[in-house]
């Protein structure tokens, strides 16, 4: 980007961005090595203190169990993101509606969802949603805890996706709307064929940011004793004798696990962002 005299490049700050501007494979690999080193060091210290199997050996024993929990984290993140995307687009379209009665409530909902902490939304859904719903045909639909938590995670992301959509639509130049009108497109036709296709490329990097944020929030499910990675790791430590020497290796392993999953997404998002920035 060329710097023009006496002009602040404010447009680069207009977008909420989660990932760092410079992500690089080498840094990620270096960090992983550092993680592994500190894990080995911590476990060596622990081994010197206790006669029982070394913390690293304990970690290896419990690893499949933790990984199984992590799989649940991923399932929750996929499902929640799918729900959030569908509902968020709906809410976003309501936000740009021309009818005041549709626009105002959807604005309110969006702001409420965006401005409350995830944990509070989690509590609301977990405690206030019924365990089952009785359908008219006397059928019962059960809501297991992990489904409820998925819905709860979807809500804040839904508010943010709604806002992304509104921002993306607003960022399309008015000329596009006017030329669509000149070609006798109705408003919904213009949205469907002209405006929204242009929004997709603008919306994809922030959408991926939110997916990463969502995945990084899924450990909160452990508060409600859902058997995901963190609660499984804690159960593992408990079962292995709850020695203090286990704490650092186990928690470092969890951090590592999420880092390995999220970091490639960060690199990819950054790449897409750069590509689309050149295109537009």
């Amino acid at each position, binding site marked *: 980007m060329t710097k023009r005299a006496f002009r602040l490049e404010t447009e680069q700050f207009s977008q909420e961005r989660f990932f760092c501007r410079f992500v690089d494979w080498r840094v990620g690999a270096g960090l992983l090595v550092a993680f592994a080193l500190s894990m080995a060091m911590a476990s060596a210290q622990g081994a010197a203190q206790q006669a029982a199997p070394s913390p690293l050996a304990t970690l290896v024993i419990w690893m499949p169990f933790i990984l199984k929990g992590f799989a649940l984290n991923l399932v929750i993140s996929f499902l929640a993101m799918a729900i959030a995307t569908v509902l968020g687009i709906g809410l976003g379209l309501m936000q740009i509606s021309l009818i005041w009665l549709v626009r105002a409530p959807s604005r309110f909902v969006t702001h409420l969802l965006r401005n409350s902490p995830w944990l509070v939304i989690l509590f609301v859904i977990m405690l*206030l949603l019924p365990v089952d719903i009785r359908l008219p045909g006397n059928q019962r639909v059960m809501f297991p805890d992990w489904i409820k938590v998925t819905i709860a995670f979807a809500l804040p992301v839904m508010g943010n996706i709604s806002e992304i959509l509104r921002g993306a639509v607003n960022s399309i130049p008015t000329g596009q709307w006017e030329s669509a009108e000149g070609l006798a497109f109705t408003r919904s036709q213009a949205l469907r064929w002209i405006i929204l296709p242009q929004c997709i490329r603008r919306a994809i990097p922030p959408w991926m940011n939110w997916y990463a944020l969502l995945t990084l929030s899924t450990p909160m499910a452990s508060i409600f004793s859902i058997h995901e990675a963190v609660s499984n790791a804690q159960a593992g430590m408990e079962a292995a004798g709850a020695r203090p020497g286990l704490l650092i290796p186990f928690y470092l392993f969890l951090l590592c696990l999420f880092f390995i999953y999220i970091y490639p997404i960060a690199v990819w998002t950054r790449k897409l962002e750069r590509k689309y920035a050149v295109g537009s």
Partner: protein
Amino acid sequence: MFELIAPFFRHLYERTGLNFIVFYDPHEFGRFVAGISISLQLIFWSLLLSLVIGVVGAWTQRSQSAIWRGCVHAYIQAFRNTPPMIQLLFFYFALGAFTPSVDMGGYTQPIISSFVWAVISFGIFGGAFNVEIFRAGLDAVPESTLEAAESLCFSRWQTYTNVTLPLAFRISLPALTNNLVSLAKTTSLAYVIAVPEMTYVLNQVWSDNINVPEMMLLLFLYYVLVVTLLATALHALERRLVLPGYGQ
């Protein structure tokens, strides 16, 4: 103030069954006020620490030494790409297990309390975002403005304090507002290490009194209020600092 509102809420409970116990029971009221105070302190200190880390980190990232830059970069990546909750657990349980304790006569208390661990953890987490925000602000100050300052016989230090910093701060402010607001919301996570802040206290209240919906409503109101106030204050600051003809 308590005497003023207590009869109303007691009456409300008796008439409608809406049990806002924190507003008419002295004991619960005390808990509630303590929760607000701890929660606000937690937000204040976390934001402050994250700002300090952000400024120091941004300075370090512009230093000549590649090693320092690499360290800051690794720090940013490590803390941005891992879950804040596990960071908090790691700090409190894993590192906390190895910090010394003091004998308080009969029982021992760790030197670093869960509140302090929460501040440290949130400060470091938020700082990882602030470094990048401040650095981008410093980078966005146009070269020609600095040259203009040089041609007016400003020394390097004068340029830095009179031109670069004021401009960089204004440029970073919108992104900073976003990040600080989201950090303030993240502080509710301190619940997991039992810091008696708002979420934790109200959780205890609703467990004791089985009035989940009312307390939930209160919790929502509290956070919406805090977030709105914080955002309004920062936006007001933004408007106050605006330079006519610059940016926008």
